[in-house]
């Protein structure tokens, strides 16, 4: 799939948060979104995920068959969308069945994030970092070309950050697209970078 975003503007309440945001993403691309707190990074992801309507501008999706944009993407946000009363395994097998186009089996995905031993524990018993890793395992159980990650490294230790980097790079090699907001450097190869400032959004060029 390809994504072409042109002249995007976002309003929250009565306030214009950013305007004039344009970028294009092809298979294998990664986009790192930077900006200070409250600049609108998460709002950009909300717009891409279809949770928020842009005030202006257009998002064009091509080469995605008959699927709409929300059906083409995974979104991992601050709220991890895990049910605390269910086990890690149950949470993931729900996501696998619900999202369609299943990829890795649940246990393989848990193994990939290093949490196979926690498969039968209710998510309520797990730490913030472990919950984040289970949310990330959701990326692996269903095949979707676009990953929207909102500060994916938050609560992760160094080893898990490397694991996440490995997942993202493998996804890009397979022709996927990663869009991530971050404050810390993610270490993605040849990633496009975009800075969101108030009123002006500038494309800071290739290579991060």
């Amino acid at each position, binding site marked *: 799939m390809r994504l072409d975003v042109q002249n995007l503007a976002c309003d929250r309440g009565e306030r214009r948060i950013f305007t004039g945001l344009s970028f294009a993403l092809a298979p294998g691309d990664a986009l790192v979104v930077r900006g200070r707190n409250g600049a609108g990074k998460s709002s950009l992801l909300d717009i891409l995920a279809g949770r928020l*309507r842009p005030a202006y501008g257009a998002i064009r999706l091509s080469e995605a068959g008959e699927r709409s944009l929300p059906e083409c993407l995974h979104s991992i946000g601050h709220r991890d969308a895990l049910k605390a009363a269910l086990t890690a395994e149950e949470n993931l097998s729900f996501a696998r069945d619900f999202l369609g186009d299943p990829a890795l089996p649940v246990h393989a995905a848990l193994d990939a994030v290093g949490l196979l031993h926690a498969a039968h524990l209710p998510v309520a018993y797990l730490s913030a970092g472990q919950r984040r890793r289970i949310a990330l395992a959701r990326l692996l159980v269903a095949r979707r070309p676009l990953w929207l990650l909102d500060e994916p490294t938050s609560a992760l230790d160094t080893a898990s950050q490397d694991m996440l980097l490995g997942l993202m790079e493998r996804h890009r090699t397979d022709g996927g697209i990663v869009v991530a907001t971050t404050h810390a450097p993610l270490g993605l190869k040849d990633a496009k970078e975009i800075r969101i400032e108030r009123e002006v959004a500038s494309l800071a060029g290739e290579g991060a």
Partner: protein
Amino acid sequence: MRSFRALLIRDLKLAARVGGSGMMGLVFFLAIVTLIPFALGPDLNLLSRIGPAILWIAALLATLIGLDRLFQADEEDGSLDLLRLAPVPMEIVVLAKVLAHWLTTGLPLALAAPFFGLLVALSPEAMLAMVVTLLVGTPALTFIGAIGAALTASLRRGGLILAILVLPFMIPTLIFGVAAANAAVGGTVPFETPFLILAALSLIAAVIGTFGAAAALRAGE
């Protein structure tokens, strides 16, 4: 269909787990129905005459107390955002959640009605009528409530607003539910007349509730 089944099973599991809403409605139902005979005194004739009305009011309130969490719980932990990425329309998502909710509140209420009927001195025919009318009528309550639950999903204290929003629309169901239950044990109206209207109300609510709640969830993004 796969998504529908996955969501239905997840919600049923959640309702069965600790802290789930599975038994809450039933316990609340029991609480109301046991209190009323104490308040009214041991007048069996009076109790059996107003019994169907008591059971219906209790069922309505028991449905109402669990409803505010229908979409709110998913909104709070971000699951609703996940549900929006479904390869199926939002209507299917709503239908799965409402069906799971009804299976864990409405259905147990209807099946438990004969036992609670004992507490208000219902005759066997009246108990049977209660089971049938609750079975047919409670889906209407759940579907109507789903619209309110979807509208108040992102509100912290949405429960009261939800009740105010949906109670007026539940009144017709209450009227025809009680009328059908009373008609089964006597009276001038044949049982079918109010019962068929009750069934119609459920069918109408199923359509309007599904589309209304889905529209509310889409708009409240």
